[in-house]
């Protein structure tokens, strides 16, 4: 698919790097890890290779081994990786996103301890633990009622905190080395203003991973259930050594939406390319099925949607790279990309006919992987957020 964005030489080089990395280290394993038991499927070797060439730590500050890659560079790379496999792409992009909490809010001591580990240890990853079985969207809408939002119990001690409770659906749960755990330190304030972040290394006594969620798509991307039983956190592991602040926001806010939307567009492009190739080869009615108008029309609409989505996502990323945070644009990117990936993957399935649902072909995986974006990137939460922003006076 032609790129009409003017990329710098450096961005083109990163695009090539991502494309080649995906072909060499992701493509050979993608189908297998999708089918494996979720307790065994994490692609550790792929992660080590990503670390070796500097891809895993791309977004970290230079002193911690990164290059502080801007949003557009990250989008370009994510798109290429997700084209081959969304789960490996998401694993790597999560390594760019979550450490940002430490970069922005951590003390120098915390950064030295944990970001250095990211830099030096090929398999070191950081997860962020917010969602609980009874509280998901409540944590994000935002919801101003004090009774809403996460309820992980936090008790202060003389020199730290004791955590008790459960988190679930936690990305990289079970494979991360450090967890940034959100807990309420002020139950009289809304969740956004009364939550603190605790740095919990995986070996902390009382901390355990009690389940690995088995999902319909993104199967090799771990989401874990975490249990905290009298987990002691020393005060030097309170993020930023301060309580009650929202870690969201800041210069890189909006990246979450772009990460999801660029992953979605990579999947959509893969589904389109697969469907286009199939339509040119499959002969029915005496000709290639692309010569039947119903099929070529479908492909034409898929192409149009992908170019539109890709343009929106990349332009939003470019703006963020220039320092122009536009929350409405980034929310729109995430929502539009979700609509595109759902439509395109299902249209691809339709073009493949009966073969589409067979596991030996890749299309059914694209459809399954696309379903994740319904709640992650679109859905009522983001629609409400965007609607709320529109209500603001101009």
């Amino acid at each position, binding site marked *: 698919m*032609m790129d009409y964005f003017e990329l710098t*030489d*450096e961005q083109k*080089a*990163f695009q*090539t*790097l991502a494309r*080649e*990395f995906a072909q*060499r280290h992701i493509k050979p394993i993608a189908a297998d890890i999708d089918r494996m038991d979720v307790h065994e499927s994490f692609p550790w070797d792929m992660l080590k290779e990503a670390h*070796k*060439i*500097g*891809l895993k730590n*791309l977004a970290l500050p230079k002193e911690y081994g990164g*290059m502080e890659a801007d949003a557009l560079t990250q989008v370009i790379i994510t798109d290429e990786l997700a084209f081959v496999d969304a789960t490996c792409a998401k694993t790597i992009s999560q390594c760019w996103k979550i450490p940002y909490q430490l970069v922005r809010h951590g003390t120098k001591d915390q950064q030295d301890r944990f970001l250095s580990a990211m830099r030096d240890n090929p398999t070191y990853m950081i997860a962020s633990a917010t969602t609980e079985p009874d509280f998901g969207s409540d944590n994000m809408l935002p919801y101003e009622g004090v009774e809403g939002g996460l309820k992980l119990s936090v008790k202060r001690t003389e020199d730290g905190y004791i955590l008790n409770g459960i988190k679930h659906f936690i990305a990289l749960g079970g494979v991360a080395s450090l967890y940034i755990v959100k807990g309420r330190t002020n139950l009289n304030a809304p969740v956004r203003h009364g939550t603190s972040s605790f740095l919990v290394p995986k070996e902390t006594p009382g901390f355990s991973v009690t389940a690995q969620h088995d999902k319909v798509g993104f199967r090799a991307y771990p989401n874990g259930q975490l249990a905290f039983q009298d987990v002691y956190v020393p005060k030097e592991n309170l993020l930023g050594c301060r309580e009650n602040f929202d870690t969201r926001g800041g210069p890189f806010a909006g990246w979450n939406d772009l990460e999801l939307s660029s992953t979605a567009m990579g999947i959509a492009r893969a589904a389109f390319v697969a469907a286009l190739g199939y339509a040119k080869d499959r002969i029915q009615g005496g000709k290639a099925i692309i010569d039947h108008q119903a099929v070529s029309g479908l492909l034409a609409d898929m192409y149009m949607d992908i170019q539109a989505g890709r343009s929106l996502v990349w332009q939003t990323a470019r703006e963020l790279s220039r320092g122009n945070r536009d929350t409405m644009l980034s929310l729109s990117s995430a929502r539009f990309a979700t609509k595109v990936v759902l439509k395109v993957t299902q249209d691809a399935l339709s073009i493949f006919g009966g073969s589409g649902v067979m596991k030996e072909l890749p299309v059914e995986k694209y459809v399954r992987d696309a379903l994740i974006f319904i709640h992650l990137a679109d859905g009522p939460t983001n629609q409400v957020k965007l609607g709320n922003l529109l209500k603001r006076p101009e």
Partner: protein
Amino acid sequence: MNILVCVKQVPDPEAPLTQFTMDASGTKIIPAVSVASVVSPFDENAIEAALQLKETHGGKVTVLSLGSLASQEALKRGTRMGADDAILVEGNDLPEPDPQVTAFILAEAIKKIGDIDLVLCGRQAADWDQGQVGCAMADYLDFSYISIVNKIDVFDKILRINRLTEDGYEIMEVSLPAVLTVTNEINQPRLTTVAGILKTTKMKIPTWSLSDIGVDPLILAEHSNPMELKKLYIPEVQVECQIVGGETPEDAALSLVGLLRSKKII
């Protein structure tokens, strides 16, 4: 050990045949605009071999190319893989294919760089596939020469190499300085790295003209290859399908191997 790797930028040999057309004179193949320019694949093997030798034995790796300014991309690729330096000799409108002229110019550039222990090239470039530049260059440099190398071990100033033959390989020893051409069995070229890409972002690649290396364009004809290009054409692809079977998978495999050997494909 100071190693120099000659690299050539070529149209992507993996691009479909339909992306290429003939020019009006019938002497040039024109790739479509969408065909990427890449480092000739065997040259990437040469870069990788050089980097592995450097990592084991120390020294420096320089990549050198003769071509238009666009060839800087090939040199950047080598740098992104880990080469220390890159140099371009600008050679526009040189006749192609003319491996003797190419070899002469590259040899003069290598003499100007100086202090080179080992020159590595890919066994043949992916456009003309002639495989002559390496040996001609060795002749101009008065270096030892071995072609189609798939293993290099270093013992002080002596190299022990494996050289591919039709039905196996030879083990040879050669003293430095030397020119070797390498084949793809020698290694799998590494990917570029983030650090390598950042290094090339602000990189200015020294670009030498022919006069910078003391080459008078008027004398190039003396070194020119007397070869005459008789005909250049894009072959028509004909597809034949032959089913090779056997009572068991092992029998089928044996039949297939025999057939491929009889057609000298393997």
